[in-house]
């Protein structure tokens, strides 16, 4: 181990002047010290000396990720996105949960993070935009928007989630067949969930699921084209041997028909009637990489919860399938690996339907490998989320929430009393702003200079139970304000979400 860079040693004559304790010896320009001062000192035991505590002032906030806003108290810039935090080993998974009561700027916060990630090369995927909040954003990013409506809009084919099956055909070999098996499994879960939704609280039977899986397998093995739900129904009606094998009907046609009857009726309900033709057409997939993707579901009235939930589920399945397909293709060297950021907004629309929905959501939103994939979940109460999803949240951004919600949050991540007080204050500020005053006077005089009601746009960023949270004030840039896509005034000037 050699010395780094040397300085002249004490008393060396040859190449340097005399050097002493006080500096270079000599006059005029040597820059030595006049005398060696000794600061005044006081003695005490450490039990009391620690009271002169040097770490009482907060240090600089970590600079990881893109800037999203300012610290609420000190005004320092806060940088955050969940993917960079994960890459810096600050959180265990690249997943973020944004939690706040309605109208407090969850979508704006999410847009900020999504724009920052898009600039870093991550592709935002928004499989289900109900308000719509992100359509303008995706358009500005140059991405694709698929508008879903009962008839004539974009299609969602649950039989081939995200083009996994066609990717499997492309890859071929052992990996291809493994991917195909994955695709069939995913498709089965999706179709099963849709059927469950249609039936109400009745859970789908296990043999019905195996029948669907067998039918899909047969269709994929025999056809080149992507199968549709109608094909599945027709195939089941033809009593093929593979499907019979799963039903153990002992060659009895009557027993077979009795077993598959309800299944066929449920599938038909999906492709005709009240569900329109959303699930009965093939998806037109773009060639090459798109900078962003948004599934616009705003045409579907919110008074139609079951249909909306079905579309959302099919959308999630399709999008997650797309991610898996890209990963598999990239593994096989057939495509460039894309980095995605998935945004699941309005989770509660599906979770509120209860029953098996939370478990299904958990299954559908699971990824085999999370490298290069970030996920953002947005909801307004942890009560709807089941354990599975809750455990996957590595980072939380909590806006104003009432006291009941705080108890739920404490089960996942411990909050200090100071943090709880702050969250309650944001909540109470905002709820008084949403009272009847605005309706009466037509203009809420308590909006601040940026047109934000009090308590909105403020989130507590919490990444672990041990570290204190960072209160962030989300700030929009001038570029965003000019663009107007964040819809700030419109969103905050009166629509209770």
């Amino acid at each position, binding site marked *: *181990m*050699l*010395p*780094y860079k*040397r*300085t002249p*040693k*004490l008393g060396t004559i040859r190449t340097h002047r005399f050097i002493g*304790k*006080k500096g*270079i010896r*000599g*006059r*005029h*320009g*040597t*820059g*030595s*010290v*006049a*005398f*060696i*001062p*000794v*600061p*005044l*000192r*006081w*003695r*005490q*035991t*450490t*039990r009391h000396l*620690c*009271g*002169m*505590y*040097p*770490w*009482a002032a*907060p*240090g600089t906030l970590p*600079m990881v*990720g*893109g*800037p999203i806003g*300012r610290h609420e108290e000190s005004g*320092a*810039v806060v940088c955050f996105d969940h993917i960079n935090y994960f890459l810096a080993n600050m959180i265990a998974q690249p997943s973020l949960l944004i939690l706040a009561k309605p109208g407090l700027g969850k979508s704006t916060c999410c847009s900020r993070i999504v724009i920052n990630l*898009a*600039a870093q090369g991550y592709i935002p995927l928004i499989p289900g935009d109900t308000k719509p909040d992100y359509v303008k954003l995706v358009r*500005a*990013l*140059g991405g694709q928007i698929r508008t879903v409506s009962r008839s004539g809009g974009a299609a969602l084919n649950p039989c081939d989630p995200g083009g996994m099956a066609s990717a499997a055909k492309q890859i071929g070999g052992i990996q291809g067949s493994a991917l195909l098996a994955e695709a069939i499994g995913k498709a089965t879960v999706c179709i099963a969930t849709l059927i469950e939704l249609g039936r109400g609280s009745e859970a789908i039977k296990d043999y019905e699921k195996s029948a669907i899986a067998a039918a899909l397998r047969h269709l994929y093995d025999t056809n080149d084209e992507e199968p549709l739900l109608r094909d599945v129904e027709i195939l089941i009606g033809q009593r093929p041997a593979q499907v019979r094998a799963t039903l153990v009907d002992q060659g009895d046609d009557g027993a077979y028909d009795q077993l598959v009857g309800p299944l066929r009726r449920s599938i038909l309900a999906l492709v005709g009637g009240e569900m329109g033709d959303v699930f009965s057409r093939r998806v037109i997939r773009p060639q090459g990489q798109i*900078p962003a993707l948004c599934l616009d579901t705003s045409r579907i009235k919110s008074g139609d919860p079951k249909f909306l939930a079905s579309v959302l589920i099919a959308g999630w399945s399709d999008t997650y399938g797309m991610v898996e397909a890209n990963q598999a293709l990239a593994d096989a060297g057939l495509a460039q690996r894309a980095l995605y950021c998935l945004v699941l907004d309005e989770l509660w629309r599906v979770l509120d339907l209860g029953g098996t929905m939370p478990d299904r959501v958990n299954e559908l939103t699971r990824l085999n490998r999370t490298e290069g994939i970030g996920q953002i979940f947005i909801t307004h109460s942890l009560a709807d989320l089941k354990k599975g999803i809750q455990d996957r949240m590595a980072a939380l951004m909590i806006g104003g929430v009432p006291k009941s919600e705080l108890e739920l949050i404490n089960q996942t991540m411990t909050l*200090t009393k*100071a943090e709880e007080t702050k969250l309650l204050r944001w909540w109470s500020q905002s709820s008084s702003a949403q009272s009847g005053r605005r309706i009466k006077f037509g203009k809420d005089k308590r909006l601040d200079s940026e047109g934000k009601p009090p308590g909105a746009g403020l989130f507590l960023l919490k990444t672990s139970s041990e570290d*204190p*949270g960072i209160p962030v004030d989300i700030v929009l840039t*001038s570029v965003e304000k000019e663009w107007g896509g964040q819809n700030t005034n419109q969103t905050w000037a009166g629509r209770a979400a």
Partner: protein
Amino acid sequence: MTEKYVQPTYSGPIRPQSPGVWGLKLLPSLCLGAGVIGALLLSMLTNFLVAGGFAFLAVLAAAPAVIPHKGRTLYSGWSQAWAWRRHRKTGRNHYRSGLSGVNKTGTRQLPGLLTTVELWEARDAADRPFGLLQIAAANQWAVAMSVTAQGNALVDPPTTDEWVAQWGNYLALMGQEEGIAQLASIVETSPDSGQILKAHTQALLHPQGPQFAKDVLLAAAAELPRGVAETAGFVVLTFNESGLGVDRKIHKGNIAVAQVVAAEIGSRLPALSVGLLSSGASVGIPLTAGDLTRRVREAYDPKVVGEFAELDAQEEEVEVTWGDAGPSSHEEEDTTYTHDSGLSRSWEMTKVPTGIFYDDVLKRLLLPIQSAPRKRVALFYHPTDAAEAPSLLDREYKAALSKAGSNSVSKASENMAVMSARQATEDEARGAGVGTVSMIVTATWERDDRVGLKKGTDAIERAVTGSRARVSVVRGAQSAHFAASLGLGLSLPDLSVIPNIARDHI
């Protein structure tokens, strides 16, 4: 049923006590005794007049050694003023380095006390590189670690108290570790020009990202910063050579000694850096030699901070050598220090928070101050060896008792002194450490910014008055204090001529 929360208090440190008569310290008492004996002898050998004259002269000579002036004796104040006058007359308070400078190597060598400090690079037991500073003049070695303080904004008071107590434990640990001469905790604030954020954001952009997103991200980096200062924390440990197992007779030559020291400190560093985590700071990350050199260069020439930030943005390495890290010129005045593009002033603490105080006593001083954006607060802790601590505290207790007992009407303050001395012995028995604390504050402005200097001086001196502490501007030793608060492990008591042990008694 929750208990009412009671915030813990801490009692102020006291000046080191020294046994003596009539409230004098040891040396003056001895001299007084010698003077009395001398006068008596003289009176026996010659007449009373001569003896009286001798006694009068003795008292005259001794008075300045006893009369306190700003915490020190008059003699010490006079000798410092005389040394400073001589220093200035002979032109030693100027420094010229570089190609036309005093240094024959033609580089910008560090001036003053830092001339004899060498820099080495090594790896610790956790395979982290660290810069090792050799303070050859005092046979000491130092390591610096950077920490990020949590601050107690959204943390419950019991947690903060826990942090403070753990900091006390860490200080006690310093006394138990062999060979630690000084622990310096430095909290540095520097103005945030937004350039580092710009550089960081630039580095995040992906070439294939959408243009709109890139515009927004760059706009955020430009618009969000409001000039809030950055706060950085450092912990610098200074070790004595003897405590590291160095024997100059066995390890001959600088390199052999350095190898032994690097191995020893490297094995201790991981444990020492982890202990900071529970004290409300983060885990200490050792500064590498490059980091240290860069810090010194930025301190001596604040203008290069922006240039280095740009180099960071372009992901190029900042190349500074230790021999080039100093200023190209400096002018030391009585109360200011001008170096390259900066004008600095240093203060030392002349009054501690007295009585009882809470743990945020220094908070106002540590937070960024508007009119002094670039400042550092250095707290120096010199642990007393754990083996000697009990006897030292006993001596102090006896000294306090004798001081109180000598007056028939004992004053309340002396009673307090006795009580706190006894409390100290009890604390020590329960595992606390003992040590001394001192503080230096240094602030830097732009070279010709005299107005800012005046404003900042007022602001800093006001920031401590709330806690009944006081800082006063250092006279005649500005460059020495600048170097000491820089965080390179300089332990001023160990560098001075008077040995540490005797210092308390003079």
